[in-house]
């Protein structure tokens, strides 16, 4: 269990205990050492002194004994006693003793209990006892020059003085030790407080003043002492690191959040356009539906699909396609009031949610605005592109009350709009669902049809209206699906184009048509020029020319027999690219005709550059001839332009003699249409070739 803070012992106390113990022990050891040293010194000095004393005494006392100068040597002894450590000096004077009849005359000096030097009385028992208890004694023989032993001198050294001195030393040492220890302890305490605890306390104080994350608000003061400085410096470095880490963490957090937001954004927004993507759109739609439910209000979902976007992407590349999408997005943003109601559903599909619908006019108005704004040309990479869109609209609660239903129905309505010529707005109706389903079925069937060879090439004669002579024929594809039956090109061609199957379909038609033409030529018949409709998508295929050459070789068809038709609006999607491609095709000798001329937005400058041979007047201009003045004017204009550009011109969709006559009279002698023949299968055309029109 962790001790509470208040129960923990202060380092001051610990240090204090250590200091006091250490100082006392050190001083004690020092004192003991000093005591021992001094004691040894004293003993040594004592011995030295005694030796010196004896040395001088021996000689002098000897002489005095010989002179019977008892008092003199007694005085000498007294003088020798002066050093305090001398307890007693006893002289045995044999000569005087002999005179006195006692054998030896013992005299000397001894210290009494008070340390006073008194005469030594050999009969004094107490004194003799004291001599026995002396610390040190030594007896030296005194001899005359004749080596006669004339006496002895004994010195007695008491340790009392030494002990007293040592006791004094002990007391002094104790006092010194106490004072020194006290001073050292006080000094050390103060020093520790000043140089260790105070800095540590400052550090703790600074560290304690921290923010919510526990990071100190200020740096630890860096004191001068190296270790404290190192600690403070390290702590400051740590604080800096932590702060930096925190900042980095925060930044990382922010980054992560931003990334999360970005990811989330990316997950919910389209990268290219910045619009809500399908995911977010679905959420918004769901929310809008819920809101509409709660408020009991109507809402509309617009499904906007760009027309001809695929052609642009295919012909000019994805980069150009992205730019187109960006520009489309900007236009839509400007058109749609609430940006958050706009979403890029995918590819070239956009959705718009209109909530709190008061009336349908709002929806129609917005749809029309969108149509118009997207009709305007888009400039990308020096190209002027025409996109347009088809818009499908579903309504809540009219058409459904779930996201899936509204989407499905808006999509179906969009497809309906596409099928009805594009650049259109259609509200969902129930049959659109059927049509959408049919479309899906159609696509599947189309694939199967291609695989199974269910397509048939029909030919529609192209006739010199003046001579009524067949000069060529246009190959047209027909589909006899075993499941669906005979399917109109208007039904499956858009699907083939939207799915990309058109490439394969075109090649299928090309192969069959060219094979047939070559066969007819082989049979000696004169089918004329074979016109085949190709999309720009087909022409954009990198291997198209090689494929054409191969096909020419395989079929035995001559290049002079082949004419390729490309619709004007297809060309004008990427006119520059179309020019390059058509030039390349033209170089190999293939004739090129612009189909449905007048329906696209070709500029004269491009028309000049195009390596085309023929203009094909669209049937929409022919239909009302010669009554419709506008059509008359347009037709004439086209004929005149063709003539001025030295191009052939042919009109299609001619169904009446009046139309034929008008055209022939106005210079367009090449006629194609029901007037002369419907598109017919090869065997019937063969008959025409044999029997004539």
């Amino acid at each position, binding site marked *: 269990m962790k001790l509470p803070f208040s129960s923990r012992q202060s380092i001051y106390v610990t240090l204090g205990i250590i200091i006091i113990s250490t100082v006392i022990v050190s001083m004690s050891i020092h004192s003991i050492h000093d005591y021992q040293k001094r004691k040894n010194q004293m003993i040594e000095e004592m011995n030295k002194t005694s030796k010196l004393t004896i040395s001088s005494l021996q000689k002098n006392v000897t002489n005095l004994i010989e002179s*019977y100068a008892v008092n003199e040597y007694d005085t000498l002894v007294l003088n020798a006693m002066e050093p305090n450590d001398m307890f007693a000096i006893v002289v045995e004077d044999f000569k005087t003793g002999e*005179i006195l009849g006692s054998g030896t005359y013992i005299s000397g000096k001894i210290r009494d209990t008070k340390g006073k030097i008194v005469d030594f009385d050999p009969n004094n028992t107490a004194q003799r006892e004291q001599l026995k208890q002396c610390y040190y004694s030594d007896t030296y023989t005194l001899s005359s020059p004749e080596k006669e032993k004339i006496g002895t001198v004994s010195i007695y050294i008491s340790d009392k003085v030494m002990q007293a001195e040592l006791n004094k030393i002990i007391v002094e040492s104790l006092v010194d030790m106490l004072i020194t220890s006290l001073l050292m302890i006080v000094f050390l305490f103060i020093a520790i407080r000043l140089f260790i605890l105070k800095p540590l306390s400052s550090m703790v104080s600074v560290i304690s003043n921290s923010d919510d994350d526990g990071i100190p608000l200020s740096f630890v003061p860096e004191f001068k002492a190296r270790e404290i400085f190192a600690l403070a410096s390290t702590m400051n470095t740590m604080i800096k690191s932590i702060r930096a880490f925190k900042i980095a963490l925060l930044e990382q957090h922010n980054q992560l959040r931003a990334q999360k937001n970005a990811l989330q954004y990316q997950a919910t927004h389209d990268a290219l356009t910045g619009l809500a993507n399908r995911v977010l759109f679905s959420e918004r739609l769901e929310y809008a539906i819920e809101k509409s439910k709660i408020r009991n209000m109507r809402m509309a979902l617009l499904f906007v699909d760009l027309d001809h976007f695929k052609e642009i992407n295919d012909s000019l590349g994805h980069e150009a396609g992205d730019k187109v999408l960006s520009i489309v997005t900007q236009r839509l943003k400007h058109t749609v009031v609430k940006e958050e109601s706009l979403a890029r559903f995918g590819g070239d599909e956009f959705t718009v949610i209109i909530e709190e619908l008061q009336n349908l006019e709002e929806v129609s108005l917005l749809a029309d605005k969108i149509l118009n704004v997207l009709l305007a040309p888009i400039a990308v990479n020096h190209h002027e592109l025409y996109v347009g869109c088809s818009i499908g609209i579903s309504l809540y609660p009219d058409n459904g009350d779930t996201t899936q239903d509204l989407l499905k129905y808006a999509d179906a309505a969009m497809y309906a709009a596409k099928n009805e010529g594009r650049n259109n707005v259609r509200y969902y109706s129930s049959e659109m669902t059927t049509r959408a389903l049919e479309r899906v079925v159609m696509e599947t069937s189309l694939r199967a049809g291609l695989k199974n060879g269910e397509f048939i090439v029909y030919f529609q004669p192209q006739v010199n209206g003046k001579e009524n002579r067949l000069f060529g024929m246009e190959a047209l594809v027909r589909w006899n699906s075993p499941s669906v039956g005979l399917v109109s090109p208007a039904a499956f061609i858009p699907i083939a184009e939207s799915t990309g199957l058109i490439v394969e379909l075109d090649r299928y038609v090309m192969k069959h048509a060219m094979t047939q033409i070559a066969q007819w030529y082989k049979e000696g018949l004169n089918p004329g020029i074979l016109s085949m409709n190709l999309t720009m998508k087909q022409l954009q295929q990198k291997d198209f020319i090689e494929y054409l050459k191969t096909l020419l070789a395989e079929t035995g068809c001559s290049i002079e027999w082949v004419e390729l038709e490309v619709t004007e609006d297809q060309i004008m999607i990427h006119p520059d690219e179309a020019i390059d491609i058509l030039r390349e095709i033209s170089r190999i000798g293939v004739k090129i005709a612009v189909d449905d001329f007048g329906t696209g937005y070709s500029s004269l400058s491009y028309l000049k550059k195009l390596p085309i041979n023929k203009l094909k007047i669209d049937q929409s201009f022919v239909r009302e001839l010669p009554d419709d003045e506008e059509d008359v004017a347009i037709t004439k204009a086209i004929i005149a332009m063709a003539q001025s550009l030295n191009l052939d011109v042919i009109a299609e969709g001619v169904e009446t003699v009046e139309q034929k006559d008008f055209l022939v009279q106005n210079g367009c002698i090449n006629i194609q249409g029901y007037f002369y023949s419907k598109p017919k299968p090869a065997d019937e055309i063969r008959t025409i070739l044999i029997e004539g029109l």
Partner: protein
Amino acid sequence: MKRCKVKRFSFIVALVTMLLVDTAVCSAADIPQKQTTKKLIYIVSDLRIPFWTIMERGIRNRASSLGYEVETYSAQNSRKSELEFTAKAIQKNPAGIIVSPTTSSACKTILKLAKAADIPVVISDIGTDGGEYVSYISSDNKEGAYGIGKVLAKELYRRGWENGRVGIISIPQKRLNGQLRTAGFMQAMREAGIKGADLKQQVTFSYDETYTYSKELIQKYPDLRALWLQGSDRYQGALDAIADTGKKGRILLATFDAEPEFLELIPKGVLVGSAMQQPYLMGQEAVSAMDKYLHGKKVEKNPQLPILAISTDNIKEKLPLIKRNVLGIERQK
């Protein structure tokens, strides 16, 4: 019956008395003989020296009058002999010992030994470096020397020789009496404004030594006008030196202590004068002190007897005193 009782009582009384007397006699017999024999032993440094002989005569004189027997041991100036005599004296267990020690240092030993034997000691001259004694009879050496110094100075001035110097041939200055004598004399010289020449300490106290010292002083100090001998018995050495150096009549001689012939020499002017101790008197006083002590009377510890400063001027007057106290000439009975 009554008579028998009286007889018996008398017998008993007589018996008891006899017993008591016997006991008293025995006790008296057991008591050291110092009480009954009254013997004094005089240990003297050297009887060959007249001073001590005179002193001894004084001792004997007073001892005789006081009923003491005196035995004298002369150490012949030998420490060894002195010690031997001390031991011998102690063995004899006298009533007291009078000592004129060879040195004050030796005296201390004598006193110590005597004390150990519980024998009282009176010191007659020289003195002691320590120890216990009954009395120390001494001469006022300083005063005496001062006196003879005054006499000499007076004579020097009289002769107009006050600018001359005075040489001293002294006894060993380690002796207290020597120091005192010199101090007193020099005081007189200082007061008189007479310069000192030198001081030579005698060791052997021989004639030759005295002669040599005197001659040296005379030769060394041409302005020497006087010699002072701190002793007396080798005065002839000094006189001969004066004569031999041709300074006869030009250098005065003074002494300390006296010889019998001084009674003639001083009046003749051969000697200026002498500071005369009174050894006879000192001896007498030593015995008196011992006697007082033995009788339990108060004794003066350190009496100082005057020294007679004798010159031509007062010799006649002091003659009787000189004869007896100085020279120890006892009156014939």
